[in-house]
């Protein structure tokens, strides 16, 4: 693997990583860049509380009662002001879409549960469950199994 540093005072600063597949290294670089540029968290609102939620502590971002909600490791729910579509663009690559209205932190998924109804649920470390749509399940399989 090569390392290249280009110093150009006139260029817009960016870090480009060329790899064959995402790995823990690319994730660490991504986290480092996000933390350096201050884009590793979002603001969450709960009752009168306002909290900066680091991406890594969010387990799932979903839509409940038409509101975008982030669920943390303790199962606490925080209202987020951004739209899910906009969040998808700024979230790190370890956030995966599990249905059309939920994004999951794959590090915090405890397991996938196949229900007899034929549905699949993602069970998070805090105990929260969210259904995985068939389309997203196929996409996750492609991503994990490379099929």
């Amino acid at each position, binding site marked *: 693997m090569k390392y290249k540093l280009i110093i150009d005072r006139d260029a817009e600063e960016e870090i480009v990583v060329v790899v064959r597949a995402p790995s823990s290294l690319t994730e660490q670089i991504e986290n480092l860049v996000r933390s350096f540029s201050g884009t590793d968290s979002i603001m969450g609102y709960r009752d009168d509380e306002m909290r900066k939620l680091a991406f890594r502590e969010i387990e799932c971002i979903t839509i409940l009662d038409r509101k975008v909600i982030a669920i943390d490791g303790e199962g606490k729910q925080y209202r987020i002001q951004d739209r899910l579509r906009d969040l998808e663009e700024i979230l790190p690559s370890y956030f995966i879409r599990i249905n059309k209205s939920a994004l999951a932190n794959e590090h915090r998924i405890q397991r996938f549960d*196949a229900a007899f109804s*034929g549905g699949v649920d993602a069970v998070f470390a805090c105990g929260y469950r969210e259904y995985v749509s068939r389309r997203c399940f196929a996409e996750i399989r492609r991503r994990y199994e490379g099929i």
Partner: protein
Amino acid sequence: MKKHFAEFIRRGLTACGFGPLVLAVFYRILQLQGDVQTLTVDQVCVGIFSVSALAFVAGGMNFVYQIERLPLMAAILIHGGVLYVSYLAVYLVNDWLEWGTAPILVFSGIFVIGYLAIWAVIYSILRRRTARLNAILKKKQQNAAEE
């Protein structure tokens, strides 16, 4: 709802063209077996109309699998129920099945057994896929924790 209805119509129209083709194959098989040698105009017309309608319904009903939130079992039950009624009606209208309790019960039994067998296969595949995905997820999380 409107979107699903439009999808039903679109899929139904695509599939209904195959109805007369299936009917022709069906009658050809019956002729080769010596069960049917001649057909009346009435039989041909009823056959074409009913099998086209059946193909429309069978094709159109696939839209239920596109409804993201609907569990697979519910989708299969709705699909199966509509297909059962449609097939039974077409078989009876065309005199391919005798009127009476016994023939209808035999037909229903075969249909239910067929559906249960399909469901058992689908469920076992889903469980296997979920278990495989969980194993990969666990491995990924262990690697991330070690690094």
